[in-house]
């Protein structure tokens, strides 16, 4: 495992970012813009699942409208997050927050596409199920974001 991270640290992308004064902060700023968009597109659906926010629209309608923005921000997060990771792969290897974030991210993606969105699209889903799914989604994505912020502190 460590050998893989060591090799990832040596890629030209990682080296270019490390040698530049502006690249890391610049990519990081775009990563933050993605966070705002990801947060909005997750929150608007989860609030609706919990019975708040856009209550006059159906859950499937809210999800359908938010989904392209969720997918777009996910693409933005990956395309900025991977270069950031490549520039400090070894630091990440020894960083607990990084591993917490990666686990939460994997859970978040599987849960969102495998469970939350499926339940959200069903019109016969019971209230308790939609609320539970919304609450779990909020917690998982909050963990991803908070652990991500904490990578920088350790």
């Amino acid at each position: 495992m460590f050998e893989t991270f060591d090799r990832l640290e040596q890629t030209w992308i990682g080296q270019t970012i490390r040698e530049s004064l502006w690249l890391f902060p610049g990519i990081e700023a775009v990563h933050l813009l993605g966070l705002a968009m990801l947060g909005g597109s997750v929150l608007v659906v989860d609030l609706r699942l919990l019975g708040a926010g856009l209550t006059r629209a159906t859950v499937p309608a809210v999800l359908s409208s938010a989904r392209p923005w969720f997918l777009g921000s996910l693409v933005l997060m990956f395309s900025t997050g991977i270069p950031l990771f490549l520039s400090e792969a070894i630091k990440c290897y020894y960083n607990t927050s990084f591993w917490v974030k990666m686990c939460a991210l994997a859970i978040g993606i599987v849960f969102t596409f495998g469970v939350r969105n499926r339940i959200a699209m069903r019109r016969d889903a019971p209230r308790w199920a939609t609320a539970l799914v919304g609450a779990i989604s909020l917690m998982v994505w909050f963990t991803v974001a908070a652990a991500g912020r904490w990578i920088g502190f350790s």
Partner: protein
Amino acid sequence: MRSFVEWLDTHAWSTALHESLWMYPLIESTHVLTVMLFVGMLAMVDLRLVGLAFRNVAVSHLTGRLLPWSVAGFVIMIATGVLLFYAIPVRTYESVWFRVKVVLLVAGGINAWWFHRRVQRDRTFWDNHPKPPTAVRVAGGVSLAIWAGVIVCGRMIAYNWFDCDRDPSPFVMWMAGCVVEASM
């Protein structure tokens, strides 16, 4: 203004907060994560105004049901932001990024005020239109651009490229309000 931030800098609590092991990172993280609530919810409304999302939901329903969440986020942003400024007053006051951020915050406020006072006045005519009139779409687009700028500037305050003690260019010195100390 300068004497005020220098006075803040003399506070024991300011130094304690800056040097605290947990409080500063916690406040800073809250400030960053609240971007999801404040800008996230606002962006959903702005995208509707531009005509790019929730096209079959009335604009008034989005502003009525999502803006309160955004405002709650904004209150947390201001509270944590004031504390972050209090912890590092002089350096932040002399940060070019911080100054641009404040200008953008004011611009965002004016844009929001303009939207609520003028643009929104004839809302009944376009409330349910998937694509609102040009003035509304411009207000939404301007809002998205301004808050994106605020996020970028906020992130950059942490970097010291343009700090006064790094001898920046005369233009940056003027922008940042650096005090030139007479050399002996």
